[in-house]
């Protein structure tokens, strides 16, 4: 695997992410694609910590650390200020976790994209509030253990489909990406950068700490999420035109769940019903992309 941008680094070593952090990998790939002329808005999330305490920064681009619920609003303001200065080259990016996107930051995000603000919103999704101690979010998948869904009280609600919610706003571009598919991620980030209006990228970023799995499995598990259809790779233009970017090999979900401690309580029956949900979502997505099954 080779990326033509691979030699450009916009991150320094010495950040304080956990070993095997998927969010750090996501940032690294994303910045390779997006380049130096970027201002990044980071609402409260793991990356607020990873980027380092003032005056240190692990990123080579300017960063605004902002309040949890303000990702969309602050980016709107930064964009407006740049526009007043006549700077149309700098890209404004909001880099938020799933809590700051699916839950707490949702109204600011929804407001900003409804106005079709000219910015790029990236949600790196590790499926819970990992930074504060693994509390469930509306991104936590069905079946997962978190500290707020402990023991037999595991989460019995489905993960919110955030891309669909964004598509409902008919934004120019919404896409999913994974740290295990760097070419796809970089290509989507470049494509989004070249567009104007509100753009949204949902990056699946595994979390060895919160998912209770060995750190070396981080990328492997992210890859399996795609291979099993749990996290399909696709993009949507104007909220309508769907393209599926990866046709999975049809792996069963079991192995993905078996490798993670957060799912260890699930029975064969639970896994069978999860497989049904995954199949159903996949069929729905294929229909939207115009791939009807016979």
């Amino acid at each position, binding site marked *: *695997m*080779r*990326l033509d941008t*691979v030699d450009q*680094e916009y*991150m*320094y*070593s*010495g*950040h*304080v*992410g956990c*070993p*095997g*952090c*998927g969010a*750090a*990998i996501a940032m*690294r790939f994303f910045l390779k694609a997006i380049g*130096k*002329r970027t*201002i990044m808005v980071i609402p409260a999330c793991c990356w607020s910590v990873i980027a*380092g305490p*003032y*005056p*240190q*920064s*692990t990123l*080579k*681009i*300017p*960063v*605004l650390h902002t309040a949890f619920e303000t990702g969309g609003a602050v980016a709107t303001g*930064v964009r407006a*200020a*740049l526009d007043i*200065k006549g700077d149309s080259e*700098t890209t404004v990016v909001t880099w938020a976790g799933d809590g700051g996107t699916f839950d707490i930051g949702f109204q600011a995000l929804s407001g900003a994209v409804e106005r079709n603000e000219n910015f790029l919103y990236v949600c790196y999704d590790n499926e819970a509030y990992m930074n504060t101690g693994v509390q469930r979010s509306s991104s936590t998948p069905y079946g997962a253990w978190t500290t707020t869904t402990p023991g037999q009280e595991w989460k019995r609600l489905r993960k919110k489909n955030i891309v669909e919610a964004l598509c409902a706003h008919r934004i120019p571009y919404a896409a999913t990406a994974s*740290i295990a598919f*760097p070419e796809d991620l970089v290509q989507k980030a470049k494509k989004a950068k070249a567009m104007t209006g509100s753009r949204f990228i949902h990056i699946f970023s595994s979390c*060895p700490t919160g998912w209770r799995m*060995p*750190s*070396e*499995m*981080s*990328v*492997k598990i992210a*890859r399996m999420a795609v*291979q099993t259809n749990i996290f399909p790779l696709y993009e949507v233009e104007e909220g309508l035109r769907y393209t599926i970017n990866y046709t999975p090999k049809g792996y069963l979900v079991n192995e993905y769940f078996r490798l993670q401690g957060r799912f260890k309580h699930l029975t064969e029956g639970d896994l069978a019903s999860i497989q049904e949900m995954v199949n159903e979502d996949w069929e729905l997505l294929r229909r939207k992309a115009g791939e009807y099954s016979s």
Partner: protein
Amino acid sequence: MTLRQTAVNCPPLIIPCSRFTTESNKTGSWRFLRPRYENKTAPCSSACPAGEDIPRIEMLVAQGLFKEAWETVLMENPFPGVCGRVCYHPCEQVCNRREFDEPVAIRTVERFLADTATRNGLQPDIKRLNAKQQKIAIVGSGPSGLALAYFLARLGYESEIFEAMPEPGGVLRWGLPTYRLPVAILKADIARILELGVHIHCNKTITPRFLDEVTGHYDAVFLGCGHSHSLPLKIPGEDLDGVEDGLRFLQKLRQGKEVVLNGTAAVIGGGNTAIDVARSAARLGAKPLVIYRRRQQDMPAFDDEVTMALEEGAEIWELRTPVKIAAVEKDYVLTLQQMEVIGEDARGRARIRVQLNKTEEISVQHLFVAIGASSAEQWYKPPPKKSSTMRLSNCSILPRSQGPTVVFGGDLVADIKSVVHAIASGKQAAMALDNLFQNGFDAIRAGIEPNLVGDGPSLSMENYLGWPRTQSSRSVVHHEDLNTDYFRFAPRIIQPRLLREERLRSFAEIDLKIGTILGIREAERCFNCGICNQCDNCRLFCPEIAVVRDDTTQNRRINYDYCKGCGLCVVECPRSAMTLEEECLCNRY
């Protein structure tokens, strides 16, 4: 803690950028597991009796570096042209790709390299050690003797070969039909060995007195005179005029004698010689009939050869053994005893016994016997096990109080009699003699052992010379050690061959050449098990940006100041060229 101030080159922006990096945080102190680059041994290399560095050869071919790939073959095997055609390729049986789709056609790629080198007139850069004073006499110029001469020359020793026949090559020259091995290919491989300064005396038959005659002239004598004496059937009628010995028949053909056959040609035996005779007979106009006492699947002949013999019209009568031969007019009447299977031995071969009162008679026009061979002279045989003989996997060494040390090699000592085992024998003998001369008889085993490839018994000359392959670990990469997510299904090359009709018209080589694109494509299928091919995954996925480029052999190294030991690089390495091990805490500060 000192914060290194780094000037960050920012565009003029409204929002200022932090001027301190996080590089002052030496996150390497978090690490309790340590990844490192470690080349390992591929199963194919370990299974190759010549110990060729196959994953590296395939990698170099895939990169278009044909000369380097060819030289990598020559490092361990002086016969790429021969082995690329007639080797029974045990490497392909254990190829990790077998569990993924189909094994890599390793032999085809080796032949491609040999053909490419010949076509372009490449001259290999063969490094040689300083000249030594000892001199070795080699009896027989078959693959083991020639391989020994080649490896000895590279180690700096002078050797002379004594060959009874008018041309060198042994069984390769006289025992293999040209449709398997054209003579020009053999001559090219031999010429390269002789260019190293090896002297060869043809038409020189040696006698038992040879060992005494050469005392003082040579420090060691290698007996690699092979099995040229066919075993007898020991049945009545065997001595009838016209009942031919298979090996002699093949030799006659290789000497260029004109032979025309007609009717049915019966061949007794199930080894490669029997199949070679049957297929040659088919080309000369007869209908071959192979008679074997066990089942077809038990035949020692290589499966490919048997399949092609059947394609060419040979018939196989299994579970029959001849008990009498009689001449009736110009034909032979063969009485065959039927056998029955009563079980299997440890190797899965049928155990058989005579089926009483079940015999049949068949009338044939030609009869060949090819049930195996042994050494032509009793004194060629290695002495029975006794304390003074050192028995290694592919050769036996007999030290003598007077006169030169005697080494028995090639088919004389081999369990599996194949070309590549003969090469292995020559290589092992070369290492053994070098140790004998430099460090004494007792140092031989210890001197050879570190050069085993993987689980052994194959040996690496590159290791012996202390060249880069020494740094590879001997642990063998298994399929479960690979990250196959990075590999795509790709069909194995289909070896282009002459049509059946074309084959039967002449003794022309059956397997055709493959072009550069096909050769590269096949080499690209190789997983390169255990060796770094610079895929860059380790650097790409490192969350700590702790894999950095440099000018070491991997072209990259791990910056342990920042590596947190997550182990991602080791799992994402598709080919198990990295190892994760426990951090030694004493290393840290």
